[in-house]
């Protein structure tokens, strides 16, 4: 029988320990008189703010920190070293499509005429920006197989909102906005949240034994009061709905629409097109499929593509080409649902997504999809003996396991995820989708080489062995980070959401 000191602890191959520096809050090293800025001298007369503003003048300055430039650079540089990032290694996060963020995107989005363009500058002086919008629109329409598109929504959830608004406007124009939206229980949380925001009642639809849509049950569930079905395809368990054309038929027969959540487009791009298999309206995530950087949580961009019957309702304005080839913004759209945001959308992300599309071309996009699906299936094959596959259906660009085998030793998906950190990886998506108890959702993307995939597989296999022979090392993970598991309960019960001077900022 193994003694305490002989219990198996895996060998990490991707990481060693490394030093990270400590760094407090910027306010904690602030001192009056330190400066990191110098303005150019005024070339106009100075003014007396109290004369100009009167009672509207600020009496006390905001307590922003005062630091020197080197202190600021060190501050943020040290902070950055505490982050994991794609630039450091793979993110196996299912449904997030954490692919490489090309640096040429960053360069072109910062070009002077592009970065400095004001949305209200004259159209004749914005032909470059309008051309970027137009070309991206054309590419995305071709990729999705749809007829029209808006780039206005700022992110996926915003795109979902826009898409359901389009659906609602379409139904209203026909005389009945209808009452419900059907949403599979495997859906991302933004789907039901969005439907509720648009005034629809959510009908939660149970997935079948394969984690997909039970088409017969759907046929019974769709009525004349169904506005739409919100479907993610491939589903959140990474499986293609191969009866999708029947699903579309059922919906269309009752005058309902098929909305596709395009978060998993990385499995379809260049191989098939949603518009071809019956989708009426869908959103895309430029920060997933189209490589724009996540930046710690955003910005994203959530274009919405639709078929012609929804085109009149698109947000205003739309970009059009005049007789002489000049591009302009058309605001005269009487049936539009209105604006979903000011100006034209997250233009900086359009530049990046377009650069990505141009750097790939038709062959490149097809190959990225093939590699993404290949990589996911490789991982599936290499881990299916140790982790349970809840569904036997073929995986596309992501694979979902469950923690059922590990649960026998009291170890859950969340614990395995934390132990994965010690092996130098960011965790996979934990406990989602909800239809798989104890889910481990893994999406490697096409960016990962076989070497990185093998390191990941090696880590997961070693952890599986640790679960059998030494579960405590997994339950107490992570061991190698600068902070260990944080107390989220107290953080929620007694929220401290800002720093306060004099002490640690704790308040009752």
């Amino acid at each position, binding site marked *: 029988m193994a003694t305490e000191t002989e219990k198996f602890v895996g060998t990490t191959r991707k990481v060693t320990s490394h030093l990270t520096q400590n*760094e407090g809050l910027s306010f904690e090293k*602030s001192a*009056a008189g330190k400066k*990191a800025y110098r303005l150019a001298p005024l070339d106009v007369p100075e003014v007396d703010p109290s004369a100009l503003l009167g009672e509207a*003048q600020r009496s006390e300055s905001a*307590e922003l*920190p005062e*630091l020197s*430039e080197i202190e*600021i*650079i060190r501050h*943020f540089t040290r*902070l950055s070293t*505490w*982050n*994991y990032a*794609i630039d*450091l290694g793979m993110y196996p996060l299912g449904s997030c499509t*954490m692919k490489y963020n090309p640096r040429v995107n960053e360069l072109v989005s*910062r070009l002077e*005429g592009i970065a*400095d363009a004001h949305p*209200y*500058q004259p159209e004749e*002086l914005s032909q470059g*920006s309008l051309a970027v919008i137009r070309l991206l629109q054309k*590419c995305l329409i071709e990729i999705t197989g749809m007829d029209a598109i808006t780039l206005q929504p*700022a*992110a996926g959830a915003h795109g979902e909102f826009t898409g359901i608004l389009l659906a609602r406007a379409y139904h209203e124009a026909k005389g009945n906005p209808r009452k419900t939206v059907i949403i599979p229980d495997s859906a991302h*949380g933004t789907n039901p*949240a969005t439907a509720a*925001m648009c005034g629809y009642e*959510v009908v939660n639809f149970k997935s079948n034994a394969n984690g997909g849509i039970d088409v017969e049950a759907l046929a019974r569930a769709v009525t004349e009061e169904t506005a739409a079905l919100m479907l993610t395809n491939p589903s959140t368990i990474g499986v293609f709905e191969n009866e999708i054309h029947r699903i579309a038929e059922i919906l269309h027969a009752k005058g309902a629409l098929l909305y596709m959540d395009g978060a998993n487009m990385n499995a379809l791009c260049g191989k098939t097109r949603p518009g071809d298999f019956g989708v009426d309206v869908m959103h895309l995530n430029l920060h997933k499929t189209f490589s724009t950087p996540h930046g*710690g*949580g*955003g*910005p994203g961009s959530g274009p919405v593509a639709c078929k012609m019957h929804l085109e009149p309702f698109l947000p205003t304005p739309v970009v059009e080409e005049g007789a002489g080839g000049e591009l302009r913004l058309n605001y005269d759209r009487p049936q539009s649902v*209105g604006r979903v945001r*000011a*100006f*034209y*959308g997250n233009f900086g992300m359009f530049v990046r997504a377009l*650069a990505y599309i141009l*750097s790939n*071309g038709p062959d490149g*996009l*097809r190959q990225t999809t093939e590699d993404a*699906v*290949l990589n996911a299936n490789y991982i599936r094959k*290499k881990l299916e003996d140790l982790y349970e596959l809840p569904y036997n259906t073929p995986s*596309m660009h992501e694979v979902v396991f469950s923690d059922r085998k590990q649960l026998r030793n009291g170890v859950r998906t969340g614990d395995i995820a934390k132990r994965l950190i010690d092996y130098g990886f960011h965790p996979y998506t934990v406990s989602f989708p909800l239809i798989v108890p104890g889910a481990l959702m893994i999406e490697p993307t096409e960016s990962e080489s076989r070497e990185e995939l093998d390191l990941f597989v090696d880590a997961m296999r070693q952890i599986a062995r640790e679960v059998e022979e030494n579960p405590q090392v997994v339950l107490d993970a*992570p061991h190698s980070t600068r902070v260990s598991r944080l*107390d*989220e309960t*107290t953080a*929620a019960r007694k929220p401290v*959401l*800002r*720093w306060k001077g004099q002490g*640690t900022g704790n308040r009752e």
Partner: protein
Amino acid sequence: MLREIGASSIDDLFAVIPEEYRLKRDLEIPRQMGESEIVDHFKAAAAKNANGYASFLGAGVYRHYRPVLIDTIVQRGEFLTSYTPYQAEITQGTLQAIFEFQTMICELTGMDIANASMYDGSTACPEAVLMAMRVTGRDGVVVARTVHPEYREVMRTYAQHREKESGERTQEIGYAQDGRIDLAALEAAVTDQTACVLVQSPNFFGVVEDVPAIAAIAQKKGALLVVAVAEAVSLGIVRPPVEADVVIMEAQSFGVAPSFGGPFCGVIAAKENYVRQMPGRLVGQTTDKQGRRGFVLTLSTREQHIRREKATSNICTNQALVALMATVFMTVYGKEGIRDLALQNLAKADYAAKALGTQGTLLFAGSPRFNEFVLQTEEAPEALHARLLEQKIIGGVALKRWYPELGNATLWCATELTMKEQVDRAAGVVAEAAAAVAGR
């Protein structure tokens, strides 16, 4: 790898897609380009935009100098290519930076709590309105017409179905002679069914609203006061709207390039008792098992991934990297710098208003304003703009498409980047225009 999987070709892995839907042709998109070609493509696009023009455009998007440190820091892969900080142990960099952001926003706005960003100022408005409705349990909304017209359009889009259901329409209150919200009309409109009054300050005309007076009217009837700040730099010298219950900010002025309208950085800040109704991500301070300070996303039960259809908002991805730009900007300028910067803006705009005002008529002249002003001219804005463009000057936005009653008026902005020489040249053109009209 295919062998290991047991597939004979890559097509096996796509067999699950019904045959009739498998694409058998190439996508009709431009051919694959080399990196230099991509750079050339966008340089060509940039060349077709305005280059080397003096610009007096503001109207919700402001030209401010971006300290070099911003891109130095946000271009670090550890910030740029990092994911949402759900796994706190390996994202303390992002989380601490957001905590600092939240703190600085509170300091600037006079609120107790701030979130980790919304998409932008315009979408933060309907989110704040929905928040006020949850807090008060009421349906009515009162909005000033001096709020940015596109912000109001967005609010209308979000309110559509709700208004049809409840029968409550959003009421728009006009402005008085001084360019500020008509207080008498406001008083008449606010009832005990009003969830919130929403104003912008400085407003779309650049005029600072009388926030204490507006607050008194709103809160007397138990309505919340929501104040939107579109020009964040104004908070360096203009008093913060401390009487408000909720403050919306567009932080684009804090080091975010205009970029033809996005991505920007919205924020919602509020008094602390509203924290559980706040949409968007929140970062909180806590400790780990060894008592070390750390930061986590918190109060997630408000959000979509937990509450689904009962969430306070459907927002998931926000504007984290852009918020980081704003954080660096606020840190670089700091307590003194943000005030000095705002003072420069005040001075430049005052000079510009006086110079242009002698050639046209300055509207709302007696009211306090920050870095924007409204100029009335005899010449129609189309003709005036054409003259200015010949001098490589982009003049103020014509207002008639949103405020037809203001005739030929244009909205001008001057920031610390506006040069005296540019103002003098613009004034010269406006003088020419005035002379031309007088001569007819």
